[in-house]
């Protein structure tokens, strides 16, 4: 089982990220769970979303305290100091940032495997809006590789309809541009 925690801000689509990935995994015949952090947060507030993917039925109804992967949708969240809380030492931190790995690691005090992509720039260029949820899925897929890139296409189309194409382009570009530092 792989456990993923998404960090974003209300309105940035962290919950959608987790949902799309769960749907992709389920479409592949796997088991998955996606759920938001059930808070009173509103647009702009930092929030979390959770994702579990497994080959077997998942019988757990607790939050994710020791994730295998942490995905950070908004670079400004790095400085909040808790994005890598509980992240397994052999886990991976997937970050939206224009900075290099030293700067990122310095900001959040995590020295493990780190995947970096400038998702804000890609989203701005491909979608015309700085919403990084689908873009960051590309980075997640590259870094964790738990779901086939093709499996994401259908849930993406179901969710975004006309603009699914653009989102897929952003996602694929992020997949290509993500740099992984061991």
């Amino acid at each position, binding site marked *: 089982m792989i456990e993923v925690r998404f960090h974003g801000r209300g309105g940035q689509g962290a919950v959608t990220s987790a949902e799309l990935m*769960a749907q992709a*995994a389920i479409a592949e015949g796997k*088991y998955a*769970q*996606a759920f938001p952090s059930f808070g009173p947060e509103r647009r702009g507030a930092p929030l979390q979303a959770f994702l579990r993917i497994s080959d077997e039925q998942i*019988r*757990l*109804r*607790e939050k994710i305290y020791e994730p295998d992967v942490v995905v950070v949708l908004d670079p400004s969240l790095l400085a909040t100091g808790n994005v890598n809380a509980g992240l397994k030492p052999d886990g991976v931190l997937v970050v939206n940032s224009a900075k290099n790995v030293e700067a990122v690691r310095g900001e959040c005090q995590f020295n493990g495997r780190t995947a970096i992509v400038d998702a804000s720039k890609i989203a701005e260029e491909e979608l015309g809006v700085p919403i990084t949820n689908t873009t960051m899925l590309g980075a997640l897929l590259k870094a964790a590789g738990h779901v086939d890139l093709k499996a994401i296409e259908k849930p993406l189309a179901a969710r975004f309809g006309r603009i699914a194409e653009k989102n897929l382009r952003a996602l694929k570009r992020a997949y290509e541009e993500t740099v992984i530092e061991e």
Partner: protein
Amino acid sequence: MAQRVGLECSLAVSEAVKLANADVIAAYPITPQTHIVEHLSELVASGELDAEFVPVESEHSAMSACVGSSAAGARTFTSSSSQGLALMHEILYIASALRLPIVMVVANRALSGPISIWNDHGDIMSERDINWVQFFAENGQEVLDLTITAFKIAEDHRVTLPVIVNMDGFILTHVIEPIEMPEQNEVDAYLPPFVPAQKLDPAKPISMGMVGVPEVYTEARKACVDALEKSYPFIVEHWNDFAAQFGRHYKPIECYKTDDAEALFVTMGSLSETAMTTVDELRAAGQKVGLVHIRLWRPFPTDDFLAAIGESKPLMVLDRALSPGCNAGPVATELRALLYAKGKTHYVANFVAGLGGRDVTRADFKSMMAKTLSAAKSGAPMPYEMVGVKE
């Protein structure tokens, strides 16, 4: 062919109501029930479900409109939570007294105060005695399946009672997970159109909701509780039929690795799944524990429960609601009374956990079981414990 989809459990409820071809939905939005009614209004708006969606101005009116609609002979659904369920309280008793087969999904949530939108069972435990059939679902598949069976059970003329399907707020309502979506023709084969036992019809006028003078009130109540008590075999029958057709078998009480267990968790609702994983982990560490989970809460399946717990094993009963001023949570109180009446001597430890959205983890379950075993060893009665209270 049934399709396996990734779906939010709330939407699975709405899809179940669509598959059941409900005629009327009267509902008022309340967190965490909202996604259910939002999706239902979408289904009605798109024409996928041919029903009247009555966007009432309160939960009190939601249940009142459901009573009217069901009395008119329409298959009727609603959904609520917490304060909304409490606002319905008065009418819940009347719905069952009038023997109206309304189906309601309750997205369980704590009652104020302080106000909390998060999950526990405080809302439904306050509605224990409303004379409705009550189920607790453990996952999205179950909530979909049980909602479909709820219509069949409610409308069976041998039952004719309203049914509540409980699902944990957020923990289930807002989770996306894999769900087998039955085909419409399969559901149609299982669930025939609603034929009301009686209805408001100018061609055959009846009076419903008459004054229960002292000469009849006791008899009216007797008839009503009798219907609930006798609904058990029909619930089992319809769940068996469901299993035969859809391959998923639901039982009033479920056992998980109980056969050789030396102590048992007793749970209700979605935490039963966390408890199962805990059982696996404890067993891997050499501790023979098992789990008994309660799916049918009303009518309480006494014989099934007694058979499930076996002889003399310590029970760790998890309550997700308080019964202030009593010496235990509502589930433990009930189970102790039942065991006493049957001459059983099981040690019952009681923990109240997961109030107002507090996470209940495997670590919590393990700690509760450790305390249960040590208390049972000493034999001294143990007061109920509120888990994780910060002193």
